[in-house]
């Protein structure tokens, strides 16, 4: 009867899981960082424009307040996007790990 080398199987799984996690985590981190920076930059720009427009009388206080609160809502949207993308990445990692385990098991059996 063919024997199963459990040590080799575990090592293949460990190496594969590290690869999957690194790839998905790095993608997520890089996207989150660049998206976060872009959002902050865009928020700063918009707030400057609106502040100037308020000073110039192009926006009422009421309208300015609405826009600033809207910007806060947008920040919440952005946070939800991070959470949504993160959850999708978790699913991708889970699928990746399953594939690693199955591949390792089938090649070691």
């Amino acid at each position, binding site marked *: 009867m063919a024997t199963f080398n459990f040590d080799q199987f575990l090592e293949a799984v460990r190496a594969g899981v590290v690869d999957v996690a690194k790839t998905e985590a790095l993608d997520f981190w890089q996207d989150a960082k660049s998206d976060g920076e872009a959002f902050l930059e865009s928020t700063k720009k918009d707030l400057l424009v609106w502040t100037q427009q308020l000073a110039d009388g192009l*926006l009422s206080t009421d309208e300015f307040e*609405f*826009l600033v609160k809207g910007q806060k809502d*947008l920040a919440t949207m952005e946070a*939800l996007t991070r959470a*949504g*993308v993160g*959850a999708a990445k978790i*699913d991708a990692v889970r*699928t990746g790990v399953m594939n690693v385990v199955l591949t390792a098991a089938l090649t070691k059996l």
Partner: protein
Amino acid sequence: MPVGRGCDKISRSPNSHVFSLRRTLIGLFLMILVAGCATVAPKDPVSLQNAIGLKAESLALLGKAIDPPDAHAPEIQGLRQKLQAAVAYEKSKGDVNSISVEQWDLLSNPNENLLGGFLRKWEADGKGQSPAFIDGVKKLVTKAFDQIIKVENEKP
């Protein structure tokens, strides 16, 4: 010679570790499968189409907010109904879709300060809105829809 409880039919043979390893593997696979329940709903072309279509429709209506709201009452009501339908559709996918539901809700909620809030303000004011304000809201609404579309596109 038997080796303890549960081992009556298993002798200490060279292949006994193969038998227990197989059980371990099966157990491991079962654990992964059980733990492998999705954390997000799958990507849905209907949701994407809703978001893209409603983004265009919303921005078009915002462009008309220079007029009093009475001039566009059917369009305002129509858009509101479509937004409510979009929220209901996302809710129908269950808890795994909670993030998309929250985003759609934030966008369309009349008590917040995105699209739903703007439509409520426009109607409450009973008059056309200023160009600078409309531009500002258009930017917010565009970005909000883009977030919703991004989340949907990232789903598996």
